[in-house]
């Protein structure tokens, strides 16, 4: 259909022209979710100020390595998804599907990082509950369980999204509508990563 030269030049002009990743709607969701999580962040920080002693002691009893490992898992998952999206886009722009199998593999690996995150989180909660620490223990653990629980809910939705993206990326030919779906879904997965970065800092590090 298009010669390789024109495909490259159209790819270059695509690049210089501003482009909303995915579609505007997903950014409506992102903005809404960021607004709500900003409220959560402020609540955690306020609790930290009001009950400094309780928060510091409870924080010291968290397994830091689990939080660090979860951060590394989500960051790597995001990286896999971002490169998978780039491959899909290259495949659409070149008109042939050279690399979508690689993209599907990367989506599968990203799903694996998400599953490991969930397993790791379950392990962390299991250890805490086995030690008799529950949301009722104090305000720190109430915030910790509920807010990381809401985030975990996002991770589970994100895993469903990634499974759908993997399926889309395995189609014979990717069109611009499929690419829009892939970009929108990937944006949601990155949002999950982004929210965890701040939650990790507020719960484990401060």
């Amino acid at each position, binding site marked *: 259909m298009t010669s390789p030269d024109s495909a490259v030049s159209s790819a270059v002009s695509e690049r210089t022209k501003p*482009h909303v990743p995915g579609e505007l709607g997903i950014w409506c969701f992102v903005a809404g979710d960021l607004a709500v999580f*900003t409220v959560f962040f402020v609540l955690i*920080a306020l609790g930290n*100020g009001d009950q400094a002693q309780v928060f510091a002691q409870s924080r010291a009893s968290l397994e830091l390595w689990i939080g660090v490992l979860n951060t590394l898992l989500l960051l790597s998952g995001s990286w896999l998804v*971002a490169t998978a999206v780039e491959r899909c886009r290259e495949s659409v722009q070149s008109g042939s599907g050279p690399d979508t199998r690689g993209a599907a593999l990367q989506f599968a690996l990203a799903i694996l990082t998400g599953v490991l995150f969930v397993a790791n989180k379950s392990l962390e909660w299991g250890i805490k509950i086995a030690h008799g620490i529950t949301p009722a223990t104090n305000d720190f653990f109430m915030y910790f369980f509920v807010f990381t629980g809401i985030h975990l809910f996002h991770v589970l939705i994100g895993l469903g999204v990634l499974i759908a993206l993997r399926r889309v990326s395995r189609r014979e030919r990717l069109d611009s509508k499929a690419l829009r779906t892939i970009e929108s879904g990937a944006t949601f997965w990155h949002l999950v990563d982004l929210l965890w970065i701040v939650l990790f800092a507020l719960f484990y*590090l401060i």
Partner: protein
Amino acid sequence: MNDTSSPSRLTVRPATIAWALLMIATAIGWWFGETAQGGSGDVRLAIAGVLVTAFAKVWLVGFQFMELRGAPRLLRHAFDAWVVIACAALIIICLR
């Protein structure tokens, strides 16, 4: 911009550089966290360091992974503004 015009795997993709930076930033954030909790050194500075590192990571995830680098200016700057305001607000609350 040789990254997108050629799908060659020999060039390092910007996403991969971003991933490496995020890994390094996680280590830096961890170190700030140890200082903030350990009590040795300036705790307040370490708390600010944790938050600045975290929001630098957030910004990088948005800019590179969420592809805001190529987004319309309004969307991009709205995100930048949120990062700055949220980070500043949390630092003020945590250090008050």
